[in-house]
């Protein structure tokens, strides 16, 4: 910007006391403001942006509602906060109301911490086997007074439930409920539970599978002899969907509600014991990097605002229509070529050349071709037959011939017009 080099001081006069002076250039009236006010401008802008604002508010509300719905809805099966049929919120709520403090452990350390108190039950549901043997051993070391393993895998059985073995999946055929058929008071109280899940073998096997009537039957509920560890092979009986069937509720509440505190622990990927795996590179960065990045982003946004604001609206340019004059000729040429009009093009070239030659050798236009050819032959050293072929009789039949012939024609014309 040129700066103040071209500014000049002008005596101020009130707009109405101006005299349109005797300058060469006429002066327009002074314009002050756009006739609006700050308020009107703001309101006008808002009014124009109304549809966008409404759209934004609707979108925001939808996103917010979705987030709220997603936040309350835990998707984890058997989670004490999941109200879906696979969740176990009903069981947790009932236990809570009957005086059991249900503590949900979010991590391994959390669970260990919660189990420090006296008289507590640990519910461990680890279908993905996130916990290592060491972690399981740490949980088992007399930490909990009672441990309930829901659908445990081999490591959990080895570490926590000595003497209980896995016996495979419960077949889908038996549609009826399983009967307690054991000495455990909890199982006897329930009498019948829904079939499904995994089966286990141990000393205190309850709810045996009907097909498996050997000496060592497999059942879905096994307790260790000292009754401190219970293995529940069918976790779904605790779920909201099945808890009201048969004696599911009785078994669940008795098994989980025997102590004042219940630690509900479902390990996640976060609990994976970190071995010498790859280190997260972000953790190696100094602490100021993230705030700095954020601030630079803010600065960039301000810079965008700075450069993005135009000094006044765009001005349109009414453009006149202009057409290249030779475009019709170019279009016609393409038509000739596409239609393969070799003969027609040749005839045009020949007629134009003959016209010019006739003018050059002073023969009136419109005379016979032969007379032009004769006159042309007199002007050059060429043979008459040669010229007659070129100017009169030869008709090219291909593009190549047309090009060659037209070049010969051009050469002849130059010979005669500029001798």
């Amino acid at each position, binding site marked *: *910007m040129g700066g103040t080099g071209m500014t000049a001081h002008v005596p101020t006069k009130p707009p109405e006391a101006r005299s349109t002076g005797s300058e060469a250039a006429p002066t*327009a009236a002074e314009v002050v403001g756009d006739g609006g006010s700050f308020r009107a401008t703001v309101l006008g802008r808002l009014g124009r942006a109304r549809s966008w604002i409404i759209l934004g508010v609707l979108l925001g509300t939808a996103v917010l509602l979705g987030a709220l719905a997603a936040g309350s809805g835990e998707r984890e099966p058997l989670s004490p906060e999941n109200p879906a049929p696979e969740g176990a919120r009903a069981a947790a709520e009932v236990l809570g109301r009957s005086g059991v403090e249900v503590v949900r452990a979010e991590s391994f350390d959390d669970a260990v911490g919660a189990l420090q108190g006296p008289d507590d039950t640990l519910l461990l549901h680890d279908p993905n086997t996130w916990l290592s043997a060491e972690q399981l051993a740490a949980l088992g070391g007399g930490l909990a007074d009672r441990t309930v393993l829901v659908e445990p895998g081999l490591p959990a059985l080895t570490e926590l439930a000595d003497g209980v073995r896995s016996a495979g999946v419960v077949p889908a055929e038996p549609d009826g409920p399983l009967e307690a058929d054991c000495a455990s008071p909890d199982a006897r109280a329930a009498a019948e539970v829904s079939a499904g899940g995994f089966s286990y073998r141990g000393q205190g096997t309850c709810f045996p599978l009907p097909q498996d009537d050997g000496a060592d039957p497999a059942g879905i509920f096994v307790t260790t002899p000292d009754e401190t560890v219970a293995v529940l092979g069918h976790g779904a009986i605790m779920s909201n969907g099945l808890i009201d069937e048969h004696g599911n509720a009785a078994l669940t509440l008795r098994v989980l509600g025997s102590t004042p505190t219940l630690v509900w622990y479902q390990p996640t990927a976060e609990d994976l014991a970190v071995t010498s795996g790859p280190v997260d590179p972000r953790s190696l960065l100094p602490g100021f990097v993230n705030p700095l990045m*954020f601030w630079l982003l803010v600065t960039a946004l*301000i810079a965008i605002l700075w450069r993005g604001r135009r000094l006044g609206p765009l001005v349109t340019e009414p453009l006149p229509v202009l057409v290249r004059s030779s475009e019709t*000729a170019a279009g016609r040429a393409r038509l000739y070529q596409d239609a393969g009009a070799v003969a027609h093009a040749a005839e045009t070239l020949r007629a134009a050349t003959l016209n010019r030659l006739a003018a050059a050798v002073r023969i009136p236009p419109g005379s016979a071709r032969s007379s032009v050819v004769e006159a042309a032959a007199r002007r050059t050293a060429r043979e008459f037959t040669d010229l007659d072929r070129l100017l009169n009789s030869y008709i090219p039949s291909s593009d190549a011939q047309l090009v060659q012939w037209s070049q010969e024609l051009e050469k002849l014309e130059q010979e005669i017009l500029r001798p």
Partner: protein
Amino acid sequence: MSVTGRLVLLALLGVVPVLLYPGPVSIALWAALLVLGSALDLLLAASPRAVGVQRQLPETVRLTEGTISTLTVRNHSRRSFRGWIREGWQPSAGAHNPVRHLSVPAGEGRSVSVQLVPRRRGDLRVHHVTIRSAGPLGLAARQLTIPAPGMLRVLPPFRSKRLLPSKLRRLRELDGRAAVQIRGAGTEFDSLRDYVRGDDVRSIDWRASARRRDTVVRTWRPERDRRVVIVLDTSRTSAARIEDEPRLDTGIEASLLLAVLAQRGGDRVDFLAFDRRQRARVQSAGKGNLLASLVTAMAPLDSELIEADFSRIPAQVRSISAHRSLVVLLTALDSGAVEEGLLPMLPSLISQHVVVVASVRDPHLDELRHRRGTAAETYRAAAAERALLDRAAIKDRIHRLGAEVVDEPPHELPSRLADLYIRLKAAGRL
């Protein structure tokens, strides 16, 4: 409102506290500083609504010449104004410095000049002036666009003005020539002078010689006070661009040269721009500023995308001049349009007037017809030859009807048309 580069710099400076005390607190504090500074600036900035703008603009300017639009900015508020002013000229006005930075103390005025070098003929407009008033800290600014319309008429350049002296000299040479050299129907008796050797003996005035002792000859001068009507076709064919110039602009150049020449030659000149209706009309206002009124009338002319209605031209010409006149039609000689429009109309015009048909010839066609290297080029040469043949045929037909034809490339046309006028005048055919 808008923010300034200074705010961005200040934000960038916030990197230091963020580095020293990383965390949300430093970020929040610095952001609050920015917001507070901007808000203060917006509150303390001079209101752009209290800034008065007054434009001083010449009415006309010739194309290729520069001019200056002077804005007087008066600050009627009680605060000092610091900020930017932008004039919203359309791009072809060629504003070199449309954005100006200036500061105006309270109650005073300053003027800023915006240099304009228009790039197009016609009426160029400015719609608004945008005022951006920055606060004392220079972090944020208030912005307002106020409607301040203005118009600058850009006149055709009249480049062929440089040909005028030589043409005028040729015109003056016609004066005082012996009649025999320019004998024709309309030559007028001018004066008597002494016989010098070489004069045609047939021009000796015997009666006057008898009264005096010396031999006296009559001299003649070209006829004066004839009418010249220039009709410029503004229909679709005038939109064709030939050598970087639309046919319309070449026509304007040619009509300007002819009009000025004819006026100096003592004839009355009328101008008419026409397609289906009259687009511009300049009457011979006797002496004085014919050129000024012509360029002013021609400046806003634009090609209309419609077919010309030539059948109405005889009536238009009759309304301008009831007498025998020289009618110059500046149009296109493209086959098709001419056969249906111009040719049927010509006989009735020729029966009353001397008619000249002037048209711009495309030199590109001549280039095309010589290029015969490949098949595509040869076909193009054939198409060019076809166009030229058609053109020659049309010219021939117009000739046979009794009108003169000037068909020249753009830079030649004004000169050749002027030559034809001088020739017709010398021959006394006006």
